[in-house]
């Protein structure tokens, strides 16, 4: 197998006195689809927020494509990463949020176009063409000029995915992207994720409560419990055949 694109080395994260992650070691390979499951409060979301640079680890290293994300070398010493260093790596990573976080003052086309034009300095017409293609792909080609407030939750989440994809990340992070949706809208969003997983070659990390979906698309499933990876393996190993009592009790509670 190729070199991992992301490596966590003994990563810890505390919020005040509460240690949320207690030493995470993890490799993510290019094009690998990783599902992160576990009880709420187990630190699932924190794992991907550290990678998106939305939170800073308390200890440990995260290596992205050979570069240390949160530390940089300066005059022969390792110092805390500054904004420029973070930006030089962050461009490889995209994220979709639980609450969509679309920009309400922009049309959905503008939502997709702003970052490629201003952050990556790409040519406007190229970006527009690509954004329209991407919005068509997620089934919203007829809503280009609508504002987010005119869309349903499922449509908003599909725009959020198109917006992240237009940036062409190497790693896509999905933070419980169906949790804020009405049940009847979950399917349309999962279909888009499935489409991305099957047709794009980026690595994906999904924090999710959709066990059947995880089983279906994930190459690797992590079961997180109280800040440590309690179990990891293929989807069927973790979800169907785990002997770990914590995994079993979690799945039991989950499936009622």
């Amino acid at each position: 197998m190729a070199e991992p694109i992301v490596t966590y080395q003994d990563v810890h994260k505390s919020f005040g006195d509460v240690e949320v992650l207690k030493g995470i070691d993890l490799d993510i390979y290019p094009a690998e689809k990783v599902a992160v499951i576990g009880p709420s409060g187990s630190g699932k979301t924190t794992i991907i927020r550290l990678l998106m640079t939305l939170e800073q680890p308390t200890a440990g290293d995260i290596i992205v494509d050979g570069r240390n994300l949160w530390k940089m070398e300066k005059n022969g010493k390792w110092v805390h990463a500054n904004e420029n260093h973070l930006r030089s790596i962050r461009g490889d990573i995209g994220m979709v949020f639980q609450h969509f976080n679309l920009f309400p003052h922009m049309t959905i086309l503008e939502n997709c176009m702003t970052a490629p034009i201003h952050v990556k300095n790409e040519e406007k017409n190229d970006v527009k063409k690509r954004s329209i293609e991407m919005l068509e792909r997620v089934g919203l080609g007829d809503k280009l000029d609508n504002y987010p407030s005119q869309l349903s939750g499922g449509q908003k989440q599909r725009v959020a995915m198109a917006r992240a994809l237009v940036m062409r990340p190497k790693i896509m992070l999905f933070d419980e992207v169906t949790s804020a949706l009405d049940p009847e809208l979950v399917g349309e969003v999962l279909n888009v994720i499935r489409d991305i997983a099957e047709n794009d070659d980026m690595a994906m990390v999904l924090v999710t409560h959709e066990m059947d979906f995880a089983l279906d698309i994930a190459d690797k499933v992590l079961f997180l419990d109280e800040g440590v990876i309690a179990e990891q393996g293929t989807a069927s190993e973790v979800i169907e055949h785990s002997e770990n009592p914590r995994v079993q009790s979690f799945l039991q509670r989950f499936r009622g």
Partner: protein
Amino acid sequence: MKEVLTISAIFEIAPQLWRGVQITVSILIASALFAYAMSFIAGLCRLSNNFLLRKLTGFYVELFRGTSLIVQLFWLYYAVPMLFGINLGSNWWIGVIAIGLNYGAYLSEVVRSSILSVSQGQYEAATALNMSSFQRMRFIIFPQAVRMMLPEFGNYTIQILKGTSLVSLIGLTDILYYGDVMRSTSLSLSPLIYLTALIFYFILALPLIFLTRKAEKIAKKGAAS
């Protein structure tokens, strides 16, 4: 008979008061623009990472919010030239500066709180798209914050219009000044003079009221999905 008298009296009073409209409107426009500029400067300074800058602007804001406009006006007009030998210019300029600084202090709080009320998720989405902190402010936070500010800016502009009537106290010839002059010569007309002045101010406020309504609609459309 009395109604006819009243109406003809108003027609007599109105042209006199009209002579003050130019000063009232020019002070309104200049001090409003000055207040807007101050509000953005002070509002952004109060959000700065620089401790000294934050404290200094905080002091300015609390000082001007916590004391009365008319005393500030007298300070700039009478006390500052006497104590420090600084001449701030004509009384027109002093009126503009005092009103601008006073309402700039109030409006800076509107600017500050609007920027703070843009949700954390917006910062995070912009970060996830690898925007720099400047781009985040310029494309995402600021446009949303400004939409939220608009209605309050409209309200305060109406307040500024009313605040301009104080400049007659430092000798500026605004609407109220001419009203006061007329009253001193024909005391019996007092009720009608001030009624006419009220009508003048109200008519001047109408476009501002209209704009504020419009701003509220824009704010509703642009913010939070």
